[in-house]
């Protein structure tokens, strides 16, 4: 690469921590906090159901539950059938939802509503606490459903 003028300002650990909201499948990036589906239900009904429908079905935005199959004439891709990692739910909801007020939930609330989404997809039960340790251990039904194309594609 050509030489640059090296104007980058060193970023402090605090500055990075305040911005870094990436959550990896192994749990890296998960904040302290916790929540259960039981706690998450009220929150979901108040802040999410208007778009995603009660229990994640029948809203104007994407369905968040409902089961179904990934094969056949009408495959059903949703959290329960398709998403490979539970950590993605936390990552996505914390950064993007609710759509009308992103970044408005506390970390506890994100854990709780994540637990609720896992619960309505039949993956965890209502009382299981989701936190930085337990969430990465949730085994999603479609965990092995992806065929890596990259780096194979690179070789072409």
């Amino acid at each position, binding site marked *: 690469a050509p030489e640059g003028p090296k104007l980058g300002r060193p970023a402090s650990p605090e500055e990075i921590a305040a911005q870094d909201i990436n959550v990896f499948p192994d749990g890296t990036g998960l904040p302290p906090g916790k929540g259960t589906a039981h706690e998450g239900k009220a929150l979901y009904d108040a802040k999410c159901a208007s778009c995603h429908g009660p229990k994640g079905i029948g809203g104007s935005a994407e369905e968040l539950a409902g089961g179904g199959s*990934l094969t056949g004439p009408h495959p059903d891709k949703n959290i329960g059938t398709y998403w490979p990692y539970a950590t*993605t739910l936390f990552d996505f909801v914390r950064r993007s939802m609710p759509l009308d007020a992103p970044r408005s939930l506390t970390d506890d609330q994100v854990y709780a509503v994540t637990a609720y989404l896992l619960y309505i997809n039949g993956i965890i039960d209502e009382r299981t606490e989701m936190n930085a340790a337990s969430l990465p251990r949730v085994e999603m039904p479609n965990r092995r459903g992806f065929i890596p194309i990259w780096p194979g594609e690179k070789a072409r």
Partner: protein
Amino acid sequence: FGAGTALAGHAVQGLAEEPPPWMKTPGEPFTNYGRPSPHEKDVIRWISANAGAPGNGISWTPLHKLEGIVTPNGLHFERHHNGVPQIDPHRHRLLIHGLVENPLSFSIDDLLRYPMVSRLCFVECGGNSNAGWHEEPIQTPVGYFHGLASCSEWTGVPLAVILDEAGLRPEARWLIAEGADAAAMNISIPVEKALDDAMLALYQNGERLRPENGYPLRLILPGWEAVLSVKWLRRLQAANRPVMARNETAKYTELLPSGKARQFTFVMDAKSIITFPSPGRNLSGPGLYQISGLAWSGRGRIRRVEISADGGRSWAESALQEPVLPQCFTRFRLPWRWDGSPLVLKSRATDETGYVQPEREVLIAERGRHGYFHYNAVVAWAVAEDGTVSHVYA
């Protein structure tokens, strides 16, 4: 004179008034920033947004109304997850952290001082053309079928320059990019691409990026699905693995008939579309026409575009408009005399790697009909005896 004889396809022949009114009175004054003629008011991006969320959806480039290869900035397609952020460029920063020796923060003014490069290249949504998977051929103008693709001259800083400065660690295999929009869109990019031709784009067709295309800073990954060319770029985390974000797991992966899905499908394969004639741009009787269309490939240059006027039995090679650039729209044209009989037109692109755009049956045999993304099959237009053009599967 004033009214002429009506010839086939041309209703008004003479001029009603000589000289016309606009030659008898001074015209409009100068403008600081121009706009299209009011007579072109239907040359627009067609918006398809979520009823409950106006900033969530897409808008299409009207490819059927355009010529050449450049997409004017006002018509570059849009895909927003939660609207267009109104970013103050002086308050925007790019943070690089994770597996780097020196975590760094850059202002836009900083980046504007870095060495830049320019390139003309297309940006195409991974979900472009996905109506092709439908059981029935969609009947809509080309742009509202294939117009989640646009082509601009992008200018910016090679990402490699900034990664050099930060000192990428050997373990770093991916960069997790994040936008400063209300969706904080994140996605994982292989370092191979980041170090190859990824660009921190600041300019689009000469001027600074448009808000809807990432102002003040976006990634451009030439030839790769556009979701990776993160708009409003604010953060790059170097990591040894992908973050497995929603948009690289739940979306932008292709479900196969087996129930398994292809993941990390980055490259946009070769595609071509005939923009004239096309649905809504009908023929006005037998005679000589110029077939015109666009081809592009994420793998490099377009080498050849063939056109068939008999549904794929025979093919003629079209002329490619120079310059033919890698990962760039390429305009192809072919003179063609229509004898008035019904027929089926097709175009088929081959890129410089030898990759040939597949027929629809072949693509579907390989991928099924539920992959949603990366549809690039040969497109067929049926021309009826009256010159009407419609989309067919043939």
